[in-house]
């Protein structure tokens, strides 16, 4: 694939539009070019103080500085630790509660009203309270991330479990399934696509929550680094921090997607 693209670029530059990969690469190069043009135009016109406007070269320099100072990997580790732990915690509670509420009507009737009341409130509104309760250390960040990740996972799990095809249940019953086997081998399997959808959405939300907690109260992590860089007018560092967050989110998102493709390879292609 890569070789094809290279050939395309060198020999048939006029037909770049034919390869989607070439188009995508071109688009990214275009963004960088426009960015650099804006920087130059600003230097010529003086629209704002050039020190406030990050440059592509500056961001690359910022990256190497952070690596050299040894803070980048620490920030990444901190952020990963918080988001992964928080996400796993929230997702685990959500899957357990979602499965219970989805299969037992009584549990759903008790769980649903309070959760439905909480759901429309933007979760960030609770962040100050979490800091109040759990301090500015790790617990408040992890619990808050878990809290935010919980909702999409819970809602999707409950739907998936509740709407398992009744025909498949009947088939399993007449093959002799006990209720434990029914849950483990049929309901959970049938709900898996929707549970994974919930996990994917939940992870996105967890990431958002993480950055918010790091921006507000922290002494390490990618979000913290952005805030700190702001205090020192290091605009290049701020942009680099944002790009790093995007990169990590993209990487983990791709991992989830790969896991999904592997787990759900039984699904018809058009349902994916």
């Amino acid at each position, binding site marked *: 694939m890569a070789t094809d693209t290279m050939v395309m670029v060198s020999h048939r530059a006029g037909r770049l539009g034919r390869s989607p990969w070439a188009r995508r690469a071109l688009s990214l190069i275009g963004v960088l070019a426009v960015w650099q043009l804006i920087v130059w135009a600003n230097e010529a016109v003086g629209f704002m103080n050039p020190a406030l406007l990050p440059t592509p070269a500056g961001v690359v320099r910022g990256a190497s500085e952070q690596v050299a100072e040894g803070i980048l990997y620490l920030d990444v580790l901190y952020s990963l630790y918080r988001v992964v732990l928080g996400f796993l915690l929230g997702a685990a509670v959500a899957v357990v509660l979602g499965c219970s509420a989805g299969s037992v009507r009584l549990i759903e009737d008790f769980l649903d009203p309070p959760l439905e009341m909480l759901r429309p409130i933007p979760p960030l509104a609770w962040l100050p309270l979490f800091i109040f309760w759990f301090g500015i250390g790790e617990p408040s960040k992890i619990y808050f991330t878990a809290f935010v990740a919980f909702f999409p996972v819970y809602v999707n799990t409950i739907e998936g479990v509740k709407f398992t095809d009744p*025909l*498949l249940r*009947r*088939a*399993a*019953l*007449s*093959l*002799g*399934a*006990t209720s434990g*086997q029914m849950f483990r*081998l*049929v309901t959970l*399997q*049938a709900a*898996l696509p929707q549970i994974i959808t919930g996990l994917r959405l939940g992870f996105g939300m967890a990431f958002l929550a993480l950055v918010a907690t790091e921006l507000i109260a922290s002494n390490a992590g990618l979000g913290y680094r952005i805030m700190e860089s702001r205090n020192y007018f290091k605009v290049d560092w701020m942009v680099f921090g944002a790009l790093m967050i995007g990169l990590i989110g993209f990487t983990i998102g791709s991992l989830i997607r790969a896991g999904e493709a592997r787990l*759900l*390879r*039984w*699904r*018809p292609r058009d349902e994916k």
Partner: protein
Amino acid sequence: MGYLEAAGVRKTFEVEEGEPTVAVEEFTLSMAEGEFVALLGPSGCGKSTVLNIMAGFLRPSAGHVLVEGQRVTAPGSDRGVVFQEHALFPWMRVLDNVTFGPRLRGVPRRERLEMGQRFVDLVGLTGFERHWPRQLSGGMKQRVAIARALTNDPKVLLMDEPFGALDAQNRRMMQDELVKIWAATKKTCLFVTHSIEEALLLADRVVTMTARPGRIKAVHEVSLARPRDDAAPAFVTLKRELADLLQQELPEEAGRVAGAESRGKRP
């Protein structure tokens, strides 16, 4: 006493307003071990309701169903079911679907795969063991469903219009296949259908039901040797006789609609 017995089965469904609907009434049937009975009737006559009661998915409002003298109260592995839609587990490969029953009983993997293989071969799906259901045609999916029910070695096989969703050609092929499969396994079979020809091709006995409420209208022994020739005079005679019987049931159901449509054209 029969191997599979239904005695005085009645089923009513509650409706929002007015009297409950009577779907099935006074349904009494006794099947011998190894017998193939077709339950024939117009759509909406309650024949699927009867099957669902036998399977244990529905409770009868009155009467009862016995399998080898044991009263049916819930679904169970002694009554295998093949549904109109294949009802295969989409996340399991063909052989895993087929061996799901033995798996539930804790049969070791190697052993149950051997059991399953026998029935995969019997339904003509050798070579498709590792396929996902989504990769199979409608007819092949029903073959898997039949193999899955048979691998579990039920006492009774209940089939609810299993070929109803297939096109005519596939349907005919599956009917021929089923005759062979049945000859090889000699299972006690109850087969629900609205096709007279299908009932006559397959069954030892054809039980015809009335439309709403569903009652047994007539029972015909089919003593023709299998495989049956649908052009044979005896077959055609029986077919006409059953067609006349069903025709009498039509005015209550489709007859009203058909009458309204054609009223203008009649002289």
